[in-house]
């Protein structure tokens, strides 16, 4: 029977097959961990006298509760004593169990889903889990990667396996060329708007078609990252020459890349393989997208009118049905998060911001996804463009995507954000989030209102 990419990766990792009575036992190749969803799992290990089965397949960093500013004396302004304790506990737990950790002194520290691929730890054909729903990001490499809760983090630490029934499969096919100024973020927002915030529940998505084949790895990660915002635990893209080339300069890449590549390329879905669900979009129809409501499925083209949708959501967002969304006043702009904090995202923003300044009424915060991204951006002089424009250029971390470290807005603020969730209060109590691409975020920072980057020059701002 022809197999899909998902079938092939799943089958390789089945330790005990699924039956009516019990789920499959699935072996995990890479367990990424961070400070927020692990403390209670390590407590269980301690209580039961268990060891970490495979510290060599476990990789840790600190990203969620970490400050993105530095005090003048070099200390870090944690939002609370508890946040600092949580970070210290991760460092203590991983030291105790012999787990490689990219902490404060590592040149590789970063958002867990930016760091894994950058190191080359994330590889095609792997099963990857992390106590974080955006683990879907790693599916860009043709890995089966998904978020798990803390109990399962404990299971993986103790057994390197999880118990799971095989999810259904869904094919999202996007063919054709994207118009100028339309990015990977716009593609995934258009997909979520089409299938709905629960449209992928119970499924693993495979993204297929020339639209994804034409994307670089950074763009593919942006797409797979938000699979969970359509309810799908995982999203995958078949490895190809672009995938293989990504590993040429990665520290944890296979020693024999050519040999590994032959195996990776064999993972692509067989012709005529079966999917439980199929969806088609035309790339040419996709416009720059923004959200207008309180979940990522409430997304619309930036040149459109706010739909007459859920009244509660529109009231929270202070949006009027029938009004143009472009031109809405913006208080803050955030470029960062595991969705859009890689070097390519900052290059896009720098191109738009070069020689311009952020509107007086806007606070713009840019947070690189990792130390490596920060170093690369600074080597290219991108930070000079940002600082000259009046942008705050911070230390790597999750920052304002989740606001756990205190990087939040004020009640009522409207934030144009390159992150992945616009839930009520996500970026601070009462804060209104508009999800957008880095280009839209940068253009909106300059104009002080939600702005289509393609129209900047027309507005006399160039």
């Amino acid at each position, binding site marked *: 029977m022809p197999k899909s990419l998902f079938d092939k990766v799943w089958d390789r990792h089945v*330790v*005990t097959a699924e039956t009516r*009575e019990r*789920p499959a*036992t699935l*072996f995990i190749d890479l367990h990424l961990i961070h400070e*927020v*969803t692990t*403390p*209670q799992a390590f*407590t*269980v290990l301690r*209580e039961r006298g268990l060891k970490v*089965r495979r510290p060599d397949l476990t990789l840790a960093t600190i990203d*969620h*509760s970490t400050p993105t500013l530095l005090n003048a004396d070099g200390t870090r302004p944690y*939002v*609370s004593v*508890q*946040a600092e*304790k*949580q970070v210290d506990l991760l460092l203590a737990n991983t030291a105790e169990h012999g787990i490689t950790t990219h902490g404060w002194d590592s040149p590789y520290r970063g958002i867990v889903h930016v760091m894994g691929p950058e190191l080359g730890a994330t590889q095609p054909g792997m099963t990857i889990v992390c*106590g*974080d*729903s955006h*683990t879907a990001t790693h599916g860009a490499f043709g890995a089966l990667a*998904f*978020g*798990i*809760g*803390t*109990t399962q983090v404990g*299971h993986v630490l*103790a*057994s*390197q*396996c999880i*118990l*799971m029934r095989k*999810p259904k499969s869904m094919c999202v096919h996007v063919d054709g060329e994207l118009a100028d100024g339309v990015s990977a973020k716009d593609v995934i927002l258009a997909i979520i708007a089409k299938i709905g*915030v*629960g449209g992928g*529940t*119970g499924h693993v998505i495979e993204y297929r078609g020339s639209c994804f084949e034409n994307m670089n790895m950074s763009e593919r990660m942006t797409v797979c990252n938000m699979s*969970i915002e359509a*309810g799908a*635990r995982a999203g995958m893209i078949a490895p190809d020459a672009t995938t293989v080339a990504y590993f040429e300069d990665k520290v944890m890449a296979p020693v024999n890349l050519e040999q590994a590549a032959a195996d990776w390329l064999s993972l692509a879905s067989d012709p005529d393989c079966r999917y439980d669900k199929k969806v088609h979009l035309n790339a040419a129809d996709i416009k720059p997208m923004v959200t207008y409501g309180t*979940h990522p*499925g409430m997304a619309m083209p930036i040149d459109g009118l706010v739909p007459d949708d*859920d009244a509660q959501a529109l009231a929270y967002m202070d949006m009027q049905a029938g009004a143009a969304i472009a031109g809405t006043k913006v208080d803050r702009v955030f470029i960062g998060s595991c969705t859009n904090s890689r070097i390519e995202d900052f290059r896009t923003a720098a191109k738009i911001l070069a020689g311009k300044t952020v509107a007086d009424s806007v606070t713009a915060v840019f947070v690189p996804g990792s130390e490596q991204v920060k170093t690369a951006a600074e080597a290219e002089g991108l930070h000079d463009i940002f600082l000259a424009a009046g942008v705050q250029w911070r230390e790597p971390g999750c920052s304002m995507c989740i*606001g*756990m470290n205190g990087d*939040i807005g004020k*009640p009522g603020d409207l934030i144009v954000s390159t992150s992945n*969730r616009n*839930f*009520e*209060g*996500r970026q601070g*109590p009462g804060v209104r989030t508009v999800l957008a691409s880095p280009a839209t975020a940068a253009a909106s920072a300059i104009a002080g209102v939600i702005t289509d980057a393609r129209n900047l020059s027309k507005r006399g701002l160039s």
Partner: protein
Amino acid sequence: MSFAPFKTLSAPTLVLTTQNIDTDQIIPARFLTTTSRKGLGKLAFHDWRYDEEGNMSDHPLNSDAAKACQILVAGHNFGCGSSREHAPWALMDYGFRAVISSEIADIFHANALKNGFLPIVIETSAHEWLLDHPGADVTIDLEKCEVRLPKNGGIYPFKIDPFSRHCLLQGQDELDYLLGQDEVISAHEAKHV
């Protein structure tokens, strides 16, 4: 970690009709710096229950009647968003033992089961009836996998993974089962170095 066995539960419902209730509503991210799983009930739906000064609102979750409600009935697609297990921990510590909806997000669903908290997806007609009747006395029977509505309102079956059902009925966690597979896991490791 084991938990109290779940066999049958008869209790009044608390109804939240909102669709797509995400994990940031169930427990806001700023409370996730905790390193314990205990005492999160006071933070459940925090921003719905308290204003910015910390004053309690008149939300049904703050009512005296809510204290007896061990069954949460919620709008379509409950628990979407993050993988935080703090969400079921908070709901359980608040006093709930089960949630009924017409759709429940995958990761929340998995996390709930691992804590002895029963997520039930029920057919639309029963879901609509429950949404319209807050405080209804409902019985959940895990042995028979059915939800019984009051006053002969009907009996509705629900599906649950047989293994999870077994664990819930016994109050058993899955870790022992996994640890018992040590040999086959080692064999897999040896084959895939």
